[in-house]
């Protein structure tokens, strides 16, 4: 009696374990994301906008530290602060005063630099509509299982963000770009962080699902900068990103901190502006979203000894392309340049002359006026 119960117990244990692994395997393939991408954009140029570059580089540093490789980061910096001739400490970009933290580091890979950071390029990166010659490092090669972090910083206003001091991107354009991404299945979930003045206006118009948005200030408020450094001479960071960086420094790849903690970063006492966020488009509960879902590249690995039956057979996608001959339509250029006429150049075959009647009429009139003015007595000298 004992052995059959034991075997039944053991078998039930095993079968239960098998079912459990099957379930996790099921969840493994149906939940969430499989890869992470990051798009970091600094839109301002000129030396006094040092802090925007420092903002972007500090987020870059954090995501790299948490495991996202450079191949999955699109970094766009509108100006080169580290090698600017006004930088008293060349090849460095500091985020804390007294030069505590150099966010430039040794292994920065900037993908779009200087004047390449334009609204057009940014939207092309997001929507993937780039010319065929664009290298991989400049492309956002995300798929429908990618979680994308998008970080924007610079000078903004109510409903727009200024690029390079010469053009703007509006919140409507940005919302439409995200909708294009959604329709092309270019993201699974999107975290949008913006650190500019009146940043909340930029996420007001989003209408695509699965987006969380965080902005450093509400409409009508300015985002303020943090501390200047007297040796560098400019403000080094903006407040929101400064405290965000401090928050991220405590995150490590295995931490379980969730989005609700991130929404509490930089309260009004520290940031002066009111940090806003928007989660109504997001399908999951923000409390269940880990920071590392966006900022880190955490691979889901489950070690199991069981064999798992993948129920859906893998079907080969058949190549539908026509293997027939390429249609060679004979092309010819319209004869635009009459080469033969130019080569055998005849000197002005049709030289325009005024009509004879015109010349006759004109000079008759002139003579009439002349004689009227100076009297008819001259006539007898001619005739």
């Amino acid at each position, binding site marked *: 009696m004992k052995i059959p119960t034991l075997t039944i117990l053991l078998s039930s244990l095993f079968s239960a374990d098998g079912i459990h692994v099957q379930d996790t395997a099921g969840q493994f393939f149906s939940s969430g994301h499989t890869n992470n991408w990051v798009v970091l954009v600094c839109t301002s140029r000129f030396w006094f906008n040092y802090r925007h570059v420092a903002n972007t580089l500090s987020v870059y540093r954090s995501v790299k530290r948490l495991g996202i490789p450079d191949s999955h980061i699109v970094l766009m910096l509108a100006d080169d602060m580290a090698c600017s001739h006004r930088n008293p400490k060349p090849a460095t970009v500091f985020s804390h005063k007294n030069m505590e933290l150099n966010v430039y580091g040794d292994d920065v890979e900037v993908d779009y630099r200087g004047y390449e950071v334009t609204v057009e390029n940014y939207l092309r990166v997001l929507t993937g509509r780039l010319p065929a010659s664009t290298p991989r490092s400049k492309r956002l090669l995300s798929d429908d299982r990618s979680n994308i972090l998008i970080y924007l910083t610079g000078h903004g206003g109510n409903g727009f963000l200024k690029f390079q001091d010469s053009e703007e991107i509006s919140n409507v354009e940005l919302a439409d770009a995200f909708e294009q991404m959604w329709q092309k299945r270019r993201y699974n979930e999107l975290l949008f962080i913006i650190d500019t003045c009146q940043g909340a206006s930029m996420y007001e118009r989003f209408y695509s699902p699965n987006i969380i948005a965080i902005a450093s200030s509400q409409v009508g408020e300015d985002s303020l900068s943090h501390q200047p450094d007297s040796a560098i001479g400019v403000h080094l960071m903006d407040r929101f990103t400064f405290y965000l960086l401090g928050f991220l420094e405590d995150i490590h790849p295995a931490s379980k901190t969730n989005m609700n903690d991130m929404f509490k970063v930089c309260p009004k006492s520290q940031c002066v502006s009111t940090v806003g966020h928007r989660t109504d488009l997001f399908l999951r509960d923000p409390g269940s979203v880990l920071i590392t879902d966006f900022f880190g590249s955490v691979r889901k690995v489950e070690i199991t000894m069981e064999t798992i039956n993948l129920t859906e057979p893998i079907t080969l996608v058949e190549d539908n392309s026509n293997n027939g001959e390429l249609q060679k339509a004979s092309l010819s250029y319209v004869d635009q340049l009459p080469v033969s006429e130019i080569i055998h150049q005849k000197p002005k075959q049709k030289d*325009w002359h005024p*009509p004879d009647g*015109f010349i006759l*009429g*004109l000079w008759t009139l002139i003579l009439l*006026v002349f004689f009227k003015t100076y009297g008819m007595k001259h006539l007898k000298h001619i005739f």
Partner: protein
Amino acid sequence: MAAPLTLLLIVAVTVRAALFRSTLAHLIAERVEVVSPLTAWKRVVEGLALLDLGVSPYAGDVFHETPLIIYLFHFLVDYAEITFMVADGISAVALYYAVQDYNKQVFRKQKYALEAERYPADCHELVRSPAEMHYIPLKVAMFYLLNPFTVLSCVAKSTCGLNNAVVSLFVLATVKGNALLSAIFLALATYQSIYPLTLCAAALLYLMQRQFIPVNARRLSFWWFVAQYAFMYLGSLFVTVGLSFFLLGSWDFLPSVYGFILSVPDLTPNIGLFWYFFAEMFEHFRLFFLCVFQINVFIYTIPLSIKLKDHPVFLIFMQLAIISIFKSYPTVGDMALYMAFLPVWSHLTRFLRNVFLVSCVLLACSALFPVLWHLWIYAGSANSNFYYATTLLFNVSQILLVSDYFYAFLRREHHLTHGLYLKKKDGSEATLVLK
């Protein structure tokens, strides 16, 4: 006075020839302040080339000058430089003789007035003497020929020089009292650019004054003269337009020339007021503002001719100034024409109030135009607002110049009737204000 005039002509021709031979000629021919889409030499050459290829020169938005210019330059295109120098010479000589005749008229009228004792006793310092008026014609010719604006306009081979020549000949014919020639030259000037139409009123007033026809709307002789002049003017205008039709065989010069002047489709920046407004205007309001701006040129004729009906030559000066400020495509050549008249009013300098301001602003704006153009177009650090601000200042200073002379002229006339030292009723010194 022939010798100084000849010397002046030689000097002027030398200056222009020197500039023609230098590399500056090409540079100046492209400046937007000196040439406009109507007057550019480049466009004339283009029109002639199109005609040689068998295409109408008015096809496309290239050529906007009249067919008679085509006829003129068909034969003279190789001697273009000499043509423009001759045109400047004609203008200067015509103005010389016109002003000489006018001065004689003025002096004669003054003599009659003095004999009739129409001037108050303390006005003797306002009375003009032949000695002071002797060199005025030469100064007028000099002001026209040696004006940097005229020289620039000639070196750029802008057809504005030809227009100025026709207007100067019109002034000469009017002052000499020849109604037929005056009507014919005015018709030619109007045929080339519509705005000299406003000079009709001044010509009528002068000719009537000279023929002792009273300027009274109730009199038949007034209307009879107006009818005669209108007949001559309109007749010559129609004849000229008809001749142009026969030259090219089509009417498409009408929209290209007059349609272009009136509807201002080309908004290349120039020293005028139209381009900036119309560049930023909504289509809905374009016609309205076009009418407003064009009426603005013509609206000053009637009030000014009522006020200045005894002084038609001053009216001509004011009309020329108003045309050159408010026309749709002004250039500095238009300015040069009315600036040539300034020595005629040199006796008014004691009443002018804004000489320093006007001259400083004109000089500064003339210097700023190329600078801000370069900054806007080439360096990219300025924008159209800077250039338009300079244009505005330039035109405001021109308006101030003209209104200042108007004030001075009227004030002198007032003093000549009411005495030089005016007193208010309580005996204190009075000031005259232009309202």
